[in-house]
């Protein structure tokens, strides 16, 4: 993908949040770089939201979540259903640069994805 986001590393260190009814827990694949990175609080609190729209196919949204966010099929389906039924889903929580990169990637597939600071 071409980009103005400035992210040049392969994106293997996505930190995803999966929300259940009563808790939030993270499934994190973390690279050593991320562990040692000294991120400011500004950089840490950015959410990626995907919003419902009437056009995108459910199968397509599941495919894009798997492709861009590296979710497994079950996770991707859960988030797709959340988008469909609740109007939006929080699909990732990252520092600003990585969250912005994910929004770009999701939008490149035509999903309505936005960035939200916490």
């Amino acid at each position, binding site marked *: 993908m071409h980009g103005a986001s400035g992210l040049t590393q392969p994106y293997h260190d996505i930190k995803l949040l999966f929300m259940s009814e009563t808790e939030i827990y993270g499934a994190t694949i973390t690279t050593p770089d991320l562990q040692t990175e000294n991120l400011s609080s500004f950089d840490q609190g950015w959410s990626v939201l995907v919003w419902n729209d009437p056009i995108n196919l459910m199968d397509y949204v599941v495919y894009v979540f798997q492709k861009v966010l590296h979710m497994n099929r079950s996770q991707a389906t859960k988030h797709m259903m959340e988008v469909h039924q609740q109007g939006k889903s929080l699909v990732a929580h990252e520092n600003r640069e990585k969250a912005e990169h994910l929004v770009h990637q999701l939008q490149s*597939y*035509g999903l309505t994805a936005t960035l939200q600071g916490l």
Partner: protein
Amino acid sequence: MKIEIHKEAISLHLHRSEAIWLLNTFRCLQQSYETPIERLTDQERSYWKGSLLDPHASSSQLKNESEALELERLIWKGDRLKIVNRWLDQFNDFNPKQEFEFKFLKEEADALLQITNDRRLLLAANHQIREEDMHHDLEKLHQNPKAEALFEIDFLAFVQSAVIHSLEYEPE
């Protein structure tokens, strides 16, 4: 439509009418991609502009980042024009009286999904298609531009589903 999965490519064997629909889709996209953004319809201009933040956020937030997204979306527009032009070349020998094979590399599958989705979303934007329109009964629709848009949106959904499922299979 029948799908043939090769080791490194996928073929869509299209009936005549399906081939005409796909050709029309690519031609319309070619025109949209090559038209400068200032000459597009308001709906299309808004589509290509995109938005980094949800509508409730202040427009002054992340101004530079929003401009970067806008620039990147214009880069996609140019990149996709090159791909569509290449795919249109396949139709040079198209005979509307015969079935047609449209072939693309598996590594281009995502581009096909993105490009067909551009068309679906642009049609929806231009014809102001809403949730309730998507639950239409195609047989009851009258001949009008919105009905034709809904037919094309449905047809491209069919193509997208077929491509997504074909990517899950590996030929022996």
